[in-house]
């Protein structure tokens, strides 16, 4: 028994060495936690930044839609009947009377027969944020199995 006790004592670490080991272990855990927290903060920051960018992009989209409407209205205002007539008069044009007109048949000329209004751009109503950014890993696996 004494021999066994002696054997343990022979192989027991010195007290200061044990302390160092505990401190080392604590620091290693601290570093690990710091790394995890670092990753978390990094990803959270990037997510927040991306979120802000999306919000800004959505604001820009609305601003551009307003600008488009404003420009359309401005163009229409500049080319309104009254403006065009005033500009024509300022340039020296005068309205023609009935006896000044002559109907000329131009072979191959096809007069406008249908409304020539180009359709407006198709607004893409598909989601802007791709599902990859919102779905969970489980959703992603589940969706992969779908046709």
């Amino acid at each position, binding site marked *: 028994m004494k021999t066994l006790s002696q054997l343990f004592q022979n192989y027991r670490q010195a007290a200061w060495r044990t302390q160092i080991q505990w401190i080392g272990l604590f620091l290693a855990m601290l570093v690990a936690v710091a790394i995890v927290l670092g990753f978390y903060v990094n990803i959270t920051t990037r997510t927040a930044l991306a*979120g802000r960018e999306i919000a800004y992009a959505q604001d820009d989209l609305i*601003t551009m839609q307003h600008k488009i409407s*404003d420009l359309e209205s401005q163009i229409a205002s500049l080319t309104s*009947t009254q403006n065009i007539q005033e500009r024509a008069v300022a340039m020296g044009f005068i309205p023609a009377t009935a006896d000044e007109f002559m109907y000329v*048949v131009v072979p191959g000329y096809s007069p406008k027969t249908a409304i020539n*209004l180009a359709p407006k751009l*198709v*607004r893409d*109503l598909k989601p802007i*944020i791709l599902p990859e950014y919102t779905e969970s890993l489980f959703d992603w696996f589940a969706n992969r199995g779908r046709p």
Partner: protein
Amino acid sequence: MINSSRWRYQVIQYFLGAICILIIGKIFFYQTSPEAEAFREGGDLNLTTLYPSRGEIYDRNGNLLAGNKTVYEVGVDLNTVRLDNNAEALSLALSVNAGLDFAKVYSSITMAGADQNYVVLADNVQAAAVDKIKAYKLELAKKSEASASTKLEGLSFKAHYQRFYPENSLASNVIGFVTLDNNGYFGIEQEYNNILAGIPSIIWIPVNPTRVEEIPQVKPGTTLILTLDREIQSAMETILDKTLKESGSESGTIIVMDPKNGEILAMTSTPRLNLNDYSSYSQVFPDSTPYNRAISQAYEPGSVLKVLTLSTALDTGAVTPSTGFMDTGVIVVGGVALNNWDRGAWGQQDMLGCVQHSLNVCFAWIATQIGADNFYGYMKKFGLGHTTGIDLAGEGTGRLKLPGDSDWYPVDLGTNAFGQGLSVTPIQMIMAASAIANNGKMVQPHLLYATVEEGVQQNRHYAVVGNPISSQTAQTMNEMLATSLEKEASLATLPNYRVAGKTGTAQIPIFGRYDPSLTNASFIGWGPVDDPKFMVYIWLEKPKSSTWSSEVTAPVFKEVAEKLVVLMGIAPDHIRHQLAGQ
């Protein structure tokens, strides 16, 4: 060695402990800061209403008639203002740059409740004024020596749409207008308000940027393409305004329609409103003045209605073009003697003579030959007495008294035959007459050509709403009406184009008696006769230069037709016939 190093470990221990306390303290500080409190109070989500842009309105050639422009709601963040104490500077800036009332703005800011974070100072502020304020704010912000109380921090501008009409008053009677609450009034704006306005969307937007969600795109209102032609509309308004001035008429109406499909190419009446200044509505339309006389004001049309009477007579076989009539200048119907417009006797006439000289006595006789049942049956088939269904708000029905009604008398058969004793709207008359110009098919007048929604254009198909007369009757009527204009040497005829038409002069009843000095002068006409491309209805109320339609509206029809053949690119008859023969 251990003892000698112990103090070092203790220093590190205290140092790390202090850092931990600092970090925890800082976290505590952030969590309890006023900003964090405000953030928590604001909640994780903001409730926001997204308003769609109102659908635009175009003419048939793609010219914008009604669009949208950006205006702003100007507000202020009260927390910033309380911090910077700049209420006076803000009020002054808004007063100078946006024309807002200084005292009102100042009191709005200073009298706001302590728990209030935001206050709206003005809405529908024009973009130019907002640009000026923003530039001024920027200029002040650059001045480093300026104190916070003189800067414009806290101002915010929220953009939204407001209706804009680039053509101002052009086609205003047709388009109608939109008030600040995005409600359409009159015309197209009211009739199609539901699809033009779109549907606002109320959504929750997360404040936390890590919880960003896609803001759903609000579907804009449906865009409308009208059958109106801006150039023709403008020309008609110019002609009408000139005519009113020259003839001294109280008001006027001109409608131009394609008789083959009912597309309204132009429609104007007086007065007209600058749609960008709709607040002047009550001044422009005092005392319940109709917004659009062409569809809502019924009146006794007079002799233009004879085209329907004669069509009925020919279709029922009551008369033929060669049927003779001895005009003695008077006819008794229902015990009442009826006279011609000149109280004269025109002797032996055929039906062409009756229509050419517009003889009331002859037409009263024709009505008796048709019989009341047939006559009123045809008038109903022509659409009199009920609305045409045109896609404009506020259409009137007119009045067609029928046998059996308490106020119908036998004499009404005679007077109705020449357009008195009943009332119609101009749009009813033009729809009814479309059957004559269009081989017996009566088309519904309409203004909507197509809708554009999500980039897809859907064209509207026109509707034939009845066949009141046969194709044969229509052709006979066309020929008779064209010949009567030519034989009468009417002021309505124009060189190189054969047109058909009929004048109408109706005295206006004042206190139960017809006043010969006050008339409604009307004209209905179309051309070219062999292939009608346009149909025109003109109505002048109480002209002063002459009371006779043949003198005041016939020349207007000629002027209108001369414009139309150019603007619509209609070849002269001889060229069309040559081209058709090739």
